[in-house]
């Protein structure tokens, strides 16, 4: 990259207020200055540092999209997979080597569009992985077509007369599929993003971080400003332990709640496997 671009990207990082650079790779993010995705990157840096996860055990799997470039910007192993296929790949990784910390990153198109068929199954298996879904309600990398989270009526390259399909809510999906940790964050709230990513990494089981992460280049409808007007926090006494209630909060349009919707502890996939190994070992001995 020549120095002009480099300067511009650095400016973008600066604008994104990424300070803690010790988790940086030598590759500079390819995102537009102001892109919401920077915040989650920063959040993952901070969580990884706080939790002292060794780089050799840190694996980021991603789909294709602007969001998908994540693995190249962070120290650790990365698997920039295919559009929509990060979750099955992460499944194989985590079962094959349970010692690894596995993070999946992808966009709304990647995760709820083309990859939507894998989402329920990664959840059902309760794999101990963290899924960061960077939701900008647009196909960023392909330059601005509606995504499954775009509102009805949205005009885009492929919907010149307005989007007909009703948007789908990734938080709701994760809850309906039975995810054991579900949080929604907003890329403007830098501290919350970092905190919840950290909690998600600490959670044993499938965790979703649904990040409202605006695309400043192609989405003129869903923006920092538009979210800002509707987001809200849970009531003080909200306990993230009731799926039915969580579903109700997840569906709320005003406010759009931010924070931890649900946390539940049940055995993970690998816990089950370990149990079975034990049983086999004991029967083989007996």
């Amino acid at each position, binding site marked *: *990259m*020549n*120095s*002009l*671009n480099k300067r*511009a*990207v650095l400016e973008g990082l600066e604008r994104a207020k990424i300070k803690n650079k010790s988790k940086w790779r030598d590759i500079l993010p*390819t*995102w*537009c*200055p102001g*892109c919401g995705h920077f915040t989650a990157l920063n959040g993952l840096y901070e969580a990884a540092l706080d939790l002292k996860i060794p780089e050799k055990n840190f694996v980021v799997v991603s789909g*294709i999209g*602007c969001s998908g470039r994540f693995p190249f910007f962070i120290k650790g192993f990365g698997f920039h997979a*295919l*559009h*929509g296929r990060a979750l099955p790949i992460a499944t194989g990784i985590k079962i094959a080597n349970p010692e690894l910390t596995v993070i999946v990153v992808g966009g709304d198109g990647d995760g709820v*569009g*083309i990859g*939507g068929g894998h989402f329920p199954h990664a959840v059902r298996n309760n794999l101990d992985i963290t899924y960061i879904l960077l939701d900008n309600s647009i*196909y*960023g*990398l*392909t*330059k601005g*077509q*509606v995504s*499954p989270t775009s509102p009805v009526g949205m005009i885009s*390259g*492929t*919907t*010149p*007369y307005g989007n007909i399909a009703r948007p789908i809510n990734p938080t709701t999906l994760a809850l309906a599929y039975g995810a054991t940790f579900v949080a929604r964050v907003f890329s403007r709230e830098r501290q919350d993003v970092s905190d919840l990513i950290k909690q998600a990494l600490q959670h044993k089981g499938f965790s979703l971080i649904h990040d409202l992460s605006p695309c400043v*280049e192609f989405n003129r409808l869903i923006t920092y400003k538009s979210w800002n007007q509707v987001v809200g926090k849970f009531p003080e006494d909200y306990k993230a332990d009731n799926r039915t209630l969580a579903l109700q909060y997840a569906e709320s349009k005003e406010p759009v709640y931010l924070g931890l919707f649900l946390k539940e502890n049940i055995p993970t996939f690998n816990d089950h496997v370990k149990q079975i190994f034990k049983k086999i070992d004991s029967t083989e001995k007996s």
Partner: protein
Amino acid sequence: MNYKELTVRFCGIAGDGIVSSSRIISGACADAGLHVMVNDIYSAEIRGLGKSTSTIRFSGSKVYSMGDGINALVGLAQQESIDEIEDIREGGSVIYDSSSPADIPETESLASHIPPEVNGYGIPLKTLANQASGSNRGRNIVSMGALCHLYGLPKTIFINQIEKIFKRKGDKVVESNLTAFELGYEYCQNQYPLNNLFVMDKKAKPLQIISGNEAVAHGAMDCGLKFFAGYPITPATKIMEITAKELPKLNGWTIQVEDEIAAIGAVLGASFTGTRAMTATAGPGLSLMSELINLSVMAEISAVIVNVQRGGPATGLPTKVEQGDLNISLYGGAGDSPRVVMAPTCSKDCYTSIQAAFDLAEKYQTPVIFLSDLFLGQRLETDDIKRNINYKKSTRIKPTRQQLKNYQRYALTEDGVSPLIVPGEDGAFYSITGLAHNTAGNPNFESEVHLTMTQKRFRKFKSMVKDLPPVEIIGDADADIGIACWGSTYGAIFEGMQIARHNGVKTKMIKSIMIYPQDEESFKTFFASCKKIIVFEMNFQGQYAALLKSTYNIKPVEVHIPSVDPVSPAKIAAKIMEVNHELTQ
């Protein structure tokens, strides 16, 4: 020096107005009856920041490729433009910003990299732009004024085009852009002598300018397309964006679905109802469609699948061209799975042969894979396309009243095509399936039935031969060297042949839009008439060569050119000369 042909390149980053400059020049030239080809290159790397170039080649006579090298470079982003200098031909020019104070240190500037054999023209682009509009924005228009003067191009065509393009933005914008243009022009006039003169025919008629993707979309709609389902993917998205806008005006519809599997699924569903339906994608999407394309083969459902090839494999090179998807198009189905494969060579082909694709698909109840590519799909080209909306649709054959009585969806016929009714039509009903089936359409797994139905499906491809767009033999009939190529490489090879001929080497070429099936007799005759055969294609493996070898038992010289920016006619010519040398030794 006098020019009958020029190639100009704009280079910059987002916001520099690369594309709009290029559209103004190309529009101006086309309106003036010049032949134009435009190729844009974006870096896929830095969103909203990456370097991009747009190269415009224009000429008084037909332009078949981007040619070799450029005459003039307009460096709107100085550093980014440095790499482009090597493409400048001897005696060419660089237009750079000489405004002071300079943005960047002297050593990093474009000017400091201009070699002696190239003419540098410093113009205070920023200063003049600010003078015209109060902002940096019009730098590209200033540079266009400069260019116009430096090559003695007719001012009026630019002025008209600027007015045309900026009209909808209001008079003020038109005004300030015209001023910017004028300032650039004047500055040059005062500063630099007129070394170059572009000579043109003042009486040429205006030409139409169109990209391959546009030609595909419009060709399809003009011949009855009523349903499009797709999923965004570079470099095919544009086709869907056009149909999304235009189809509803024709009572048709475009739906963006959840993935490419759904896209081809919806196309098969729509086609099942008798509707002309299409999807467009690139390699990764085509891969995902493999299973449903097989269903289209087995259940004999018409479908047109446009594949705009980019570099592969896997996510590959989304913004670079390659002709690597021939194999998967021909052989990407499990089992014995014949499908039509076509490859257009230019915008005009895109328009006419997408219509031929629909004809074949509809008449023969088969999927057609239409292999365009990134270069062809995105490049702009003046082409003399006769619009054809009264396209004589070759429809699916209807059953006679007699045949309806005991209607057999897959009735055996001489040409393999079974008369067809569709849902909503009276008289009979049936089910279709991807399972092996009998003539009624019901599942059946007997060996003889399977053989009969397989023969039926392949028989259609023999019957089809009479309906194929004909092959053309181009070049010198008495040449010893015969050339085969496919798709968008055609243009560069055609020009390479001209260069070779200029150097005394005659060649001929077989040009076929059809990859499968082919008019095999013509190919055999052609190959039999050659002492040496060269197959050119833009992939590493020689995918087309392999097809030709196994079909025609030939031993060609294979030239494999994996993903590159447009193929160089000069290199093609060099290869021809080399082969000729061997032949004549």
